[in-house]
């Protein structure tokens, strides 16, 4: 099985601070890490490789520093890594990004599966995975929490839906986005780190991919970030006071109904 894992480098959330005046994230001196939710797609790919054999290629679009994230993926056991980097890509929204990633994935040749994390912890959109599928005209299954089998070119997976799980069979090649439940990510190893250090990573630029300038960057992005702000927390409390024994029963009933309406009990 040949698997492509697109990953993103994000700022380490504990150290992220916001500039309240401009509404932008202060990136100076902030450590960058692999998007925590991409660790699960890497892990899912590694488990599939252990079961079915094959090769895993990680790919990341970002500034040259994103190579660090790819090296971490290599240290976890990914076979190859490709960095997609060019100043022309700056400002691309999820649609623009998915176009660039899709075109970059085309250069890899034949592959069976693309596995993405559910979303990135910085942008938090969860759009890039399905959009890559759209660009490549591939089927996509989102919120996958388990991969069951791969027979006759079809992959059976389970995905989380609102009221339980759904079992899906998808013809490959196709795209998955996985959630945390898929498996706990392994730690990078020393041998992996040494291999990552010695690996020469190909960098694909705008020219290499022969892209359409109208479809990337700010110009190619149908969406705009208008403003970033802290949401106001508006929690409303309901307080029931029991005056006597009968009041206790009434309060308990109200609490029970409250929880039942929200499907907690």
């Amino acid at each position: 099985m040949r698997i492509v894992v697109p990953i993103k480098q994000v700022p380490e959330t504990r150290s992220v601070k916001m500039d309240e005046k401009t509404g932008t994230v202060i990136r100076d001196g902030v450590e960058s890490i692999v998007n925590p939710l991409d660790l699960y797609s890497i892990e899912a790919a590694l488990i599939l490789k252990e079961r079915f054999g094959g090769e895993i290629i990680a790919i990341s679009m970002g500034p040259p520093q994103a190579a660090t994230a790819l090296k971490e993926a290599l240290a976890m056991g990914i076979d190859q890594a490709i960095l997609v980097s060019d100043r022309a890509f700056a400002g691309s929204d999820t649609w623009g990004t998915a176009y660039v990633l899709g075109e970059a994935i085309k250069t890899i040749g034949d592959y069976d599966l693309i596995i993405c994390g559910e979303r990135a912890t910085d942008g938090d959109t969860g759009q890039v995975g399905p959009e890559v599928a759209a660009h490549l005209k591939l089927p996509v299954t989102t919120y996958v929490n388990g991969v069951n089998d791969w027979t006759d070119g079809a992959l059976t997976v389970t995905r989380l839906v609102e009221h339980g799980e759904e079992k899906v069979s998808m013809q490959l090649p196709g795209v998955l986005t996985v959630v945390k439940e898929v498996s706990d990510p392994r730690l990078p190893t020393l041998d992996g780190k040494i291999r990552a250090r010695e690996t020469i990573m190909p960098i694909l630029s705008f020219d290499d991919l022969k892209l359409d300038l109208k479809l990337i960057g700010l110009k190619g992005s149908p969406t705009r970030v208008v403003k970033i702000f802290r949401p106001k927390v508006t929690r409303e409390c309901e307080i029931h006071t029991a005056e006597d024994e009968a009041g206790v029963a009434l309060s308990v009933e109200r609490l029970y109904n409250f929880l039942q309406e929200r499907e907690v009990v």
Partner: protein
Amino acid sequence: MLKETRYSYNELTLELVQNLKAIVGEQYVIYDDVERLEQFSHDETPGDYVSMPAAAIRPRTAEEIAAIIKLANRENIPITPRGAGSGLSGGAVPIYGGLVLSVDRMNSILEVDRDNMMIEVEPGVVANDINEHIEPFNLFYAGYPMSLETCFIGGNVAENAGGGKAVKYGVTSRYVLGLEVVTPTGEIIELGGKLVKDVTGYNMVQLMVGSEGTLGIFTKIILKLLPLPKIQADLLCLFKTSDDAISAVPKIMTGGGVIPTSIEFMDSHSVQAACEYLNESLPYEDCGAMLLISVDGMDRDVIEEQYITIGKFCQEAGAIEVYVADNPSTSERIWKVRRNIAEAFSLIEKRQFNDDIVVPPASIPAAIAKLEEISAKYQVQIPCFGHAGDGNIHARVLCRKDWDDKKWAAMQPVILKDMYQMIREQGGRLSGEHGVGCKRKKYLNQVVSEEYINMLRTVKRAFDPNNILNPGKIFDV
């Protein structure tokens, strides 16, 4: 309960309580209130190390403390100083009742002296707050006790706390340059200062460090700071056996030309308990022990070279896998396992005692092997974890399920005797960083000479003629 009666003191009368209130203010004296006094009756030592004080007092200044101590000397009332109460030797337990003196209100960071790279703090500052405060200046205080999020710097100095970074950075004493101390007779004295070199008389600062609250109460502390290391990387090395893991430690220390920040040892019991507690999926099933090794510095490439060197040493020593964490999130994932071992064991078996043995670093393999023998001899679990790189191991002896409380009480001294016999043979001591307190007092003469204890007694008598300050700790006068 653990009340001692060797020395006699006077009862704290209502009139004296009024006098104390006049010194610090009414609301800062807790008296005749069992519920609120309970917190001052113990520290974090597992077991029955509990004794109620007659009152607790929370002064704000050195002058107030001096007045309290003078009063206590005049009226013959014992005083037990207290930091955050996170100690593990019963040092802050008022075993003669009397007055507990808490420094929790004295919690100001007085000055960050960037020109001298020093900081002046009050004793009630939480250890971790120091580093949070000075990080923007690219400065760093090297103390790293496992309780750093709660413990006070005053307690760290009183116990000469060690912790996870001692292999490279040493223990608290290395960083204490100056102290303002209220003596056991109520004088306020400055010792040392902002000086890197100072031979003006005896080294009284270092006598105070680790004195466990028996020689004075610190009211100001001057600490040496270091440039903040920007880069850290951690290796989590899995070994088949405890022996493989621990034998690798001396090789790492001497062979690679790199001094790690820390080398933490965790046997399989410890790792398993912590992983289950945290729901962490590290592949610990096939491994008999782990080493957690950290390196830190200023340059990413240098750090990479260093951890590769050390990691290869571990592989040569038989490590079945070496994991690398070189960013804050992965690093936190593996350190969390180490920091939660104690908590995890507290849930597994309440009846346990925790020893803090220390031997010369090179004797660590022999000490661990001997502990395994003791564990087999008495059929008790002794999970071992701790700061292997500096020779300090926390051996936690868990009570056997088939022993009742009486049997457990009878067996503890028997098992301890074997452990201390081993320590003596290895040239070690009873405590590397938790202190003697009241917990290890009766075992002190098993590992040090009577002449040595007599020397300590002479010092104590000279400082505290009325035996007012923290009586019954470390040794009996």
